[in-house]
């Protein structure tokens, strides 16, 4: 069968990153993906921001405690996340990771 040559994804172009599906929990990793969901918890005493990031292999969550929003983080934005994640019920979550916004 003829197949189309697969274009390298924009994510693969950034060296040193790991596809979400390959991330080993509790190791320091860098992932890159697009913000697909944002949940802001505005309770006065417990503000938090949970962001879902998706790459071609899966989805991960990044959660920031004590903030309701982060400048530049919005649906559709591509970000690089570096941190240590837990994997609970299959879902990868980073708490207060380092982030870098991409255009």
């Amino acid at each position, binding site marked *: 069968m003829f197949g189309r040559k697969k274009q390298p994804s924009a994510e693969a172009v950034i060296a040193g990153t790991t596809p979400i599906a390959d991330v080993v929990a509790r190791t320091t990793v860098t992932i890159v993906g697009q913000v697909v969901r944002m949940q802001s918890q505005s309770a006065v005493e417990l503000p938090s921001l949970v962001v879902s990031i998706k790459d071609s292999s899966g989805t991960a969550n990044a959660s920031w405690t*004590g903030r309701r929003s982060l*400048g530049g983080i919005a649906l559709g934005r591509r970000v690089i996340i570096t941190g240590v994640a837990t994997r609970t019920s299959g879902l990868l979550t980073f708490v207060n990771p380092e982030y*870098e*916004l991409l255009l």
Partner: protein
Amino acid sequence: MIIVGCGRVGSSLARQLTAEGHDVVIIDRNTAAFRRLGDDYSGRTLTGIGFDRELLIAAGITKDSAVMAVTSGDNSNILIARVAREMFGVQQVVARIYDPRRAAIYERVGISTVATVAWTTKRILRAILAQQGSVDWTDPSSCYHLAERRITPSLAGHSIESTGANIILINRSGTAQLPMPSTVLQEGDGAHVLGTTEQLEDFDRLLASKQGGH
């Protein structure tokens, strides 16, 4: 201006800021510490724990306050900084952290820290006043100034070139980087800007603009 910790640095900050005409409250757990302020100190003092919400309210904290956490304990300073920022929405917060490794980590929860070995009153003042139109250096033969500014949410997500400003150095999470025109700015970045008075004013306007956009 709320200062927590009336040690050498805190008392010095309090004296300097009142001398400059600012409205200052200094907090310490120990009333005896206020002796360092001297008899001619014209600000307020408050005895208690700096991360206690009721105490901060009594100190008159609002989101427009400036809070300097300069106690002798890193952990207290972090707690004070987070309570001020997260509970009371204070934007201008600086925490003095002795341990530089810890400082980088706390920058990630959005706290501006001052973690140099030789932190001084001057350094802390510059950090806190960086929001208020100050200038660090002026070239004597031209009209160029160098100023440090904290990037606000309004400029987060914008590339440096899109701002039109000449940002020569970015301080992010404790590390300094030489940026490219395409570098994307983030909330909390420490940006060193070179420009004329007008250019700096334009940049300050951008920082203050409410349009968050993306």
